[in-house]
């Protein structure tokens, strides 16, 4: 209900700007559309973060590297060895990373199950860094390109495939991302509120002792959460990397993890639709900040940018404001 209100307000503002500035090349229209789709990609990663937080009250800093490693594995199968078709390569990567998630659960999470959450957070950081090292080692630091499932340009005709919005051609990959993130938010929402297993996971995060008391196997729910987290992280990476920049070790952690966390925090950290809405907000903020810093200079020279890295500044400001002013986020209250 509240989700609807928030989405409505955002959509209204965006729509107003789009309508008022239609056809204005200098205006932020293009940036808004770009931001919307970029935001959906952040939402995708944020859903995985929210899942882990709902299930274990931990911030999973290794989530980004699940994605990067998945993209690397897919790249290896699809482009480097050229042994499997695209879909199969994606599937292999998903399976491999899910297994990795289970491994991580067994080796790192389970021994630290009752440690303070901050300890576990540091452990996830260390694990993420370990994965970065492994990626560097196995795939080398040179940038690579994981192609999207469907190219944005039709190879035969040279015409763009997707629809045009305010001068921006929406690529098929981006539409897939939007579709997947909405489907994930809905299905995970259903999973947590309606299924016994989902309830059990929520219960574990609220009172691990009590879940033991009622006879729920704690190890099993923990495995399930981290397996799912790894799967979602991998899915995010596999969908996001082809729609984003070049593929290189640690790329999602350095470029996307903080915006995704910010998206999750804006959404309230426990709300799955909130993660999606938060992603959109972050994407919009970033692109609008870039637009603004590209149009206003400190001096009269173009290199005297108002703020370099304005996208990061916007994300940080959003994070700070939300945490100080409304820690429960836009949509978060219930688990």
């Amino acid at each position, binding site marked *: 209900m509240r989700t609807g209100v928030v989405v409505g307000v955002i959509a209204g503002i965006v729509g107003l700007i789009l309508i008022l500035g239609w056809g204005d090349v200098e205006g932020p229209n293009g940036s808004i559309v770009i931001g919307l789709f970029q935001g959906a990609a952040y939402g995708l990663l944020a859903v995985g973060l929210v899942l882990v937080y709902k299930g274990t009250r931990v911030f999973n800093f290794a989530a980004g590297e699940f994605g990067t490693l998945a993209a690397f594995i897919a790249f290896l199968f699809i482009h480097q060895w050229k042994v499997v078709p695209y879909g199969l390569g994606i599937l292999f990567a998903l399976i491999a990373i899910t297994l990795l998630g289970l491994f991580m659960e067994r080796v790192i999470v389970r021994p630290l199950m009752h440690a303070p959450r901050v300890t576990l957070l540091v452990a996830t950081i260390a694990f993420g860094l370990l994965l970065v090292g492994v990626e560097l080692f196995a795939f080398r630091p040179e940038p690579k390109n994981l192609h999207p499932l469907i190219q944005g340009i039709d190879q035969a005709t040279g015409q763009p495939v997707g629809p045009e919005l305010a001068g921006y051609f929406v690529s098929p990959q981006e539409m897939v991302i939007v579709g997947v993130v909405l489907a994930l938010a809905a299905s995970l929402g259903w999973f947590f509120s309606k299924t016994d297993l989902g309830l059990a996971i929520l219960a574990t995060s609220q009172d691990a002792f009590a879940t033991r008391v009622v*006879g*729920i196997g704690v190890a099993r729910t923990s495995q399930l959460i981290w397996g799912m987290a790894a799967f979602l992280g991998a899915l995010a990476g596999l969908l996001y990397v082809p729609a984003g920049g070049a593929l290189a070790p640690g790329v999602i952690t350095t470029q996307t993890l903080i915006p995704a966390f910010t998206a999750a925090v804006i959404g309230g950290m426990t709300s799955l639709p909130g993660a999606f809405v938060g992603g959109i907000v972050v994407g919009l903020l970033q692109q609008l900040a870039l637009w603004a810093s590209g149009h206003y200079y400190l001096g009269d020279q173009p290199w005297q940018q108002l703020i370099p890295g304005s996208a990061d500044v916007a994300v940080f400001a959003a994070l700070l404001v939300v945490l100080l002013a409304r820690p429960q986020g836009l949509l978060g209250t219930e688990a």
Partner: protein
Amino acid sequence: MSFLEIRDLSTGYGAIPVLQGLSFDVEEGETAVLLGLNGAGKTTTILTIAGLHEAWGGSVTFDGKEITGRDPKRLVAEGIVLIPEGRHVFPQLTIAQNLRLGAWPYRKDRGGNRERIEQAVEYFPRLRERWAQMAGTLSGGEQQMLAIARGLMARPKMLLIDEASLGLSPKLTHTVFDVVRQINLAGTTVLMVEQNAGVLKLADRAFVMEKGTIVYSGAGADMNSADIRQAYMGAPA
């Protein structure tokens, strides 16, 4: 063979032993009570029976089966259900969801569970009024009711209740004890850990614990308040 047999049970925390050779029996269908001061090892005993604390030695036999060291997951399925001290309801789930999780081993049996819920709500009509409310927003008494109701959802053969009266007003304590009595009359064996001597009037059997061992045992009705005082203070009144 008794329904629940504890033999030479020993355990502790770190290097510090708490129980050293504890033995007692509970018969099927009765209500037994463990009494004792803070730190006497009551809660440790009940947690060890429920599989939530590791036993160092000795054995726990339930319904003819040795269950020492079993996972609580399996014990709940066997019918030993703990209502822990401090209630431990799931604060951010609704009452309905809490009850649903209580029936975890029987989660496939929807029809049976609905019946169970009806039964549980019959014991505690107050829960029905707050059906969709988060458990964390309930009062202490209501949370205790919910905890017991949740325990009943697992179709226990034996209910272990830890300090149910803790922090409750005398009136509410009375209500809770009343319900426990009803549950017992309906056929469930009950082992209660209490500091409140008021529990004795519903106890078929009572044990007084001190420093990790049973220092007194007998039928609940046999124990008058002087006896108890003696047990508590270690000296005649």
